[in-house]
């Protein structure tokens, strides 16, 4: 058990070269981690090593480099299986991100197994990437999209969700941690309730994979998706986890190289999992970088990360709410280190521009959750999203900067 004081924040910050840049002459305070995270040097080195020493395509060469690249690429699959506690390595499908993983499920599973009148349930706090693919599917297959409501704290109203469940429910797709609110949804209960009706459940783990220990067997989810770039890895990498028997029944959604066993002009037979769902040359270097990112997270420990971030969240919540008339959007009891807020008389866009002058990067806007903004009756929010390399001093700087914003917009 690590103690709090042992969290090696100074050492950790040095592992991320981008954290030491200056913006407008001030040290960068990077508080936009829900959009994307910084990359540790080990990940950057993995990319460099690949392109300088191992560059080649995978799964298709007998020459040495191709075999090395294939091994390194496939090693990441094993690391992710272990990281998420999946049963089999074939349950890990590489995609270019969470968005593509959700679209894969909608296009392959959804188009095959859903029929007219079937229902899909999402929540009011979903990212557009967990709304639009289902709307597209519903339009094509004449299915019905149902939205589980949330309360004023930004928590799923579980009883209302349960009321939406029925024999007609075929898919439940919900976010694990809301990127706009920080709410941690009770994923295990959501899944268990859906399974009573034999519905399949997809958990959007884009924001949870880097904040919490994920155990897909314990959750018992049917699908779990995340993006590599929010887990300290390169952009253009992502993962779909699916239970083997479900993935096995899913037809390919894209055709091309790697996904076939044999091709003639008359007939093509498909490859086995996982390749069947991975057509074309993937982001090989990126996936190898994702493996390095997971090694890095292991070296710190996801539990230590969760504990430190929780401490930051409590500190930040207290400091921000001490600013007169600042309103936090998202005050769930179970929350990750995301602080969305609004100030009267100041539009978030103006807040974003002003704090940027102090070197502070926050996100302002609707965070790809427009229905959620409407639910809270705000056009947009300002959002500080934290990671384990952030510090309390950085939160102090944010608060001081917001106080200066208030002087301009009293």
């Amino acid at each position, binding site marked *: 058990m690590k103690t709090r004081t042992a969290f090696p924040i100074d050492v950790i910050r040095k592992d991320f070269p981008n954290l030491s840049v200056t913006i407008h002459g001030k040290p960068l305070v990077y508080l936009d981690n829900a959009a994307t995270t910084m990359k540790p040097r080990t990940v950057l080195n993995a990319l460099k090593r690949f392109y300088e020493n191992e560059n080649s395509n995978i799964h298709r060469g007998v020459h040495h480099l191709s075999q090395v690249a294939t091994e390194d690429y496939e090693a990441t699959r094993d690391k992710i299986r272990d990281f998420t506690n999946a049963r089999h390595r074939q349950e890990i499908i590489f995609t270019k991100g969470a968005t593509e993983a959700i679209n894969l499920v909608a296009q392959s599973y959804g188009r095959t197994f859903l029929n007219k009148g079937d229902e899909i349930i999402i929540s009011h706090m979903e990212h557009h990437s967990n709304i639009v693919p289902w709307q597209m599917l519903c339009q094509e297959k004449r299915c019905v999209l149902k939205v589980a409501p949330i309360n004023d704290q930004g928590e799923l109203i579980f009883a209302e969700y349960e009321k939406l469940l029925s024999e007609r429910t075929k898919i439940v797709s919900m976010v694990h941690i809301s990127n706009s609110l920080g709410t941690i949804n009770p994923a295990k209960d959501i899944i268990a309730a859906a399974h009573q009706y034999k519905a399949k459940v997809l958990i959007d783990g884009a924001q949870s994979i880097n904040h919490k220990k994920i155990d897909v067997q314990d959750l018992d989810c049917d699908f779990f998706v995340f993006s590599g770039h929010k887990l300290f890895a390169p952009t253009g990498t992502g993962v779909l986890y699916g239970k083997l028997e479900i993935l096995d029944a899913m037809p390919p959604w894209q055709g091309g190289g790697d996904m076939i066993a044999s091709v003639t002009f008359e007939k093509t037979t498909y490859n086995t999992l996982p390749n069947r769902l991975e057509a074309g040359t993937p982001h090989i270097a990126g996936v190898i970088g994702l493996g390095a990112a997971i090694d890095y997270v292991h070296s710190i420990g996801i539990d230590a990360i969760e504990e430190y971030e929780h401490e930051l969240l409590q500190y930040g919540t207290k400091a921000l709410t001490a600013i007169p008339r600042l309103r936090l959007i998202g005050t769930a009891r179970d929350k990750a280190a995301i602080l969305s807020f609004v100030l009267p008389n100041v539009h978030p*866009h103006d807040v974003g521009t002003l704090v940027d002058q102090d070197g502070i990067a926050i996100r302002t806007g609707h965070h790809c959750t427009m229905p959620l903004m409407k639910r809270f009756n705000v056009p947009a929010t300002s959002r500080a999203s934290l990671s384990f390399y952030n510090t309390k001093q950085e939160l102090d700087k944010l608060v001081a900067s917001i106080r200066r914003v208030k002087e*301009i917009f009293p």
Partner: protein
Amino acid sequence: MTEPIDIRADLYQEIILEHNKKPRNFKVMDHPTHFAEGYNPLCGDHLTVYLKVDPEGTIEDVSFQGSGCAISQASASLMTTSIKGKKVKEAEILFDQFHRLVTCALDPKKDPHQLGKLTIFTNIWHYPARVKCASLSWHAMHGALNKVQKVSTEE
């Protein structure tokens, strides 16, 4: 960038803060001859511009309503005060000059213009993310005069 940036002098000047707080001509018009909606999907700025143009082509009345950041609100307010009573043709010339000003294609110290106090937006190009906020109402006005009822800054 060679010259230092001063955000209070460049962007959040008194006149902008004041127009943001008390926007002029901020109302829905009852019987406009022209109107158009402007939307900036990046930050959610959303406003409608209304115009009443008489048969001689004079802008008798102009107003706007909507929500958005200080820059978009103040710019809309200033847009209405600078085209009210002008000919449509003059408003279109101002639109062109304003557009060039905020994209750094017009230097108010060298190039001829009739921008008047609109030159307070001269340095906004230092903040590329905010140029669209300043030009949103102008695009809506231009769209309305040309019978385009919805304009988006993401074209």
